[in-house]
């Protein structure tokens, strides 16, 4: 785990945001970019981690934590930029998270393995942003770039709610994060 790991910045029960992806693979960078956007906004009551790797490491990262939010690219055939929010229960993930990105063991597989081995956090929420392209060297597609702010805002709100730090009145639900 990196220096920005959840246990490195505060109590292990802080809500944790994990951005997955590869910043050199077009829309695969979306999880990382959302994580970077969220980091300064949850300082002191939430932790943020970027993992550009295969997802088996997630089991070690999230085991024993309270709320964990993971942001990743997804390809389910919906329009690029579409945002999916899934609260993980006992069912396998229905979307092919990571299947067409470069993670060796995909997020969906890591969730299934975590369910089987009972190595999930208390609450696991996944945000998937529908991707257009994973080609190396490509910049983010317009649709995915446009989705980042909205996802970051929703993730921030969930962290605030869980940490008992409701957003200041002038920011709640507003567009001021843009």
């Amino acid at each position, binding site marked *: 785990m990196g220096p920005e790991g959840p246990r490195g910045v505060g109590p292990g029960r802080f809500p944790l945001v994990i951005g997955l992806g590869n910043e*050199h693979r077009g829309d695969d960078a979306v999880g990382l970019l959302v994580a970077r956007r969220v980091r300064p906004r949850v300082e002191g009551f939430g932790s943020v981690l970027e993992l550009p790797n295969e997802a088996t*490491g997630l089991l070690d990262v999230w085991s024993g934590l309270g709320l964990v939010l993971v942001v990743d690219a997804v390809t389910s055939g919906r329009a690029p930029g579409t945002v999916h929010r899934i609260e993980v229960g006992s069912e396998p993930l229905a979307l092919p998270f990571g299947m067409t990105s470069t993670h*060796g063991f995909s997020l969906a597989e890591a969730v299934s393995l975590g369910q089987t081995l009972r190595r999930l956090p208390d609450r696991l929420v996944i945000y998937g942003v529908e991707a257009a392209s994973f080609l190396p060297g490509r910049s983010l597609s317009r649709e995915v770039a446009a989705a980042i702010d909205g996802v970051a805002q929703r993730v921030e709100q969930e962290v605030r709610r869980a940490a008992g730090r409701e957003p200041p009145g002038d920011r709640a639900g507003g567009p001021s994060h843009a």
Partner: protein
Amino acid sequence: MTDRTIAVDYLARVEGEGALRVRIHDRKVEEVELKIFEPPRFFEAFLRGRSYLEAPDITARICGICPVAYQMSSCHAMESAYGLRVAPAVRALRRLLYCGEWIESHALHIYLLHAPDFLGYPDAIRLAKDHPKVVQQGLQLKKVGNALMTLLGGREIHPVNVRVGGFYRCPSREETDGLRESVETALTLSQETARFVAGLDFPKVEEDYEFVSLRHPEEYPMNEGEVVSSRGLRIPVSRYEAEFEEIHVPYANALQSVRKGGGSYLVGPLARYALNRDRLGRKADAIAREVGLEPVVRNPYRSIIVRAVEMVEACDEALRILREYRPPEHPYVEAKGAPDNTRCMAATEAPRGLLYHRYRLGAGGLIEDAKIVAPTSQNQKRIEDDLRDVVGRFLDMDDAHLTSECERAVRNHDPCISCATHFLKLDLVRN
């Protein structure tokens, strides 16, 4: 006369994705095409105009599974350009970092990607339902590898602490001592792993591989050595491109490596072990003997045992380094001067095999040209050769089972598709 094509759009349990097309005509295998899309090509272009100091960080991003290998090959290349010699303690720490990557990568492949093939499960999740302890053991080993990478790399994924000339910061003795107990446990688990995988059932296959790896005068090779082959080649790394070339294949958006004037060759654990069996440490040597591992393994399915033996070697070597470690006076040596128009190269042993980097540096140490040859690109043609044999052996199988056997044959070599390809799609055509 019948034609048969088999296509697999997504090759499960291979790092990343890729595509494969097999065409059978009149019960003969006519074509086997592994389709490759290569991120290293993008990174080669991305490196141009960057400082030599940036190469380790940039190339580490080529692969999420083996970032250390890319860092090490680029560091060694740049250090040769500037005539830098790192302190013995820094050299040892680099080897320790590489041990971490080998443990992490081999544990992932053995337990989560390869073992399901032998135990009759479609994937590690189904395996974990019936044998949770087996999968937990793999995850525990992988975690120890990650811990070593975190200690030395700053973080396990895309480590940020490695630099040309050494490390930005070297760990204290207290920090290294803190890992000894978990590495000791990992050594025991690795030995158990070797015993476990040696008891699996293996298809009886022998392939005529030309093995290629580094060979060091004293050590099992990781960071340094000459390039040797099982057919008598022995050259310094500087002559790599005189003996090996990359050719363009029309069906793939990539280059394939071959021996000049020759054919395919194999890099990776089978090659390293065959060419360096006598360089294994005492514990790895003992476990190889105990489980009856032949000195040269030509059965690709048995690569799972070789990986386990290499994991024992990496744990044992990590323990030795941790025991002997004394922090160096300076974590890195700085380059002096600027070598204009210098060509430099290096090769190290990534978990999946030899990884070659070559750079041309211009004024101020700016990279003018870069060439990166990943292990999977080198093995690509050899994997196609293995697949020809597999399809030939199982011609009478239905498409679903034949496809499954093809996938298994690819997985034997643990191709890091995220290094070398984006989509692996299997297309099997029977005519």
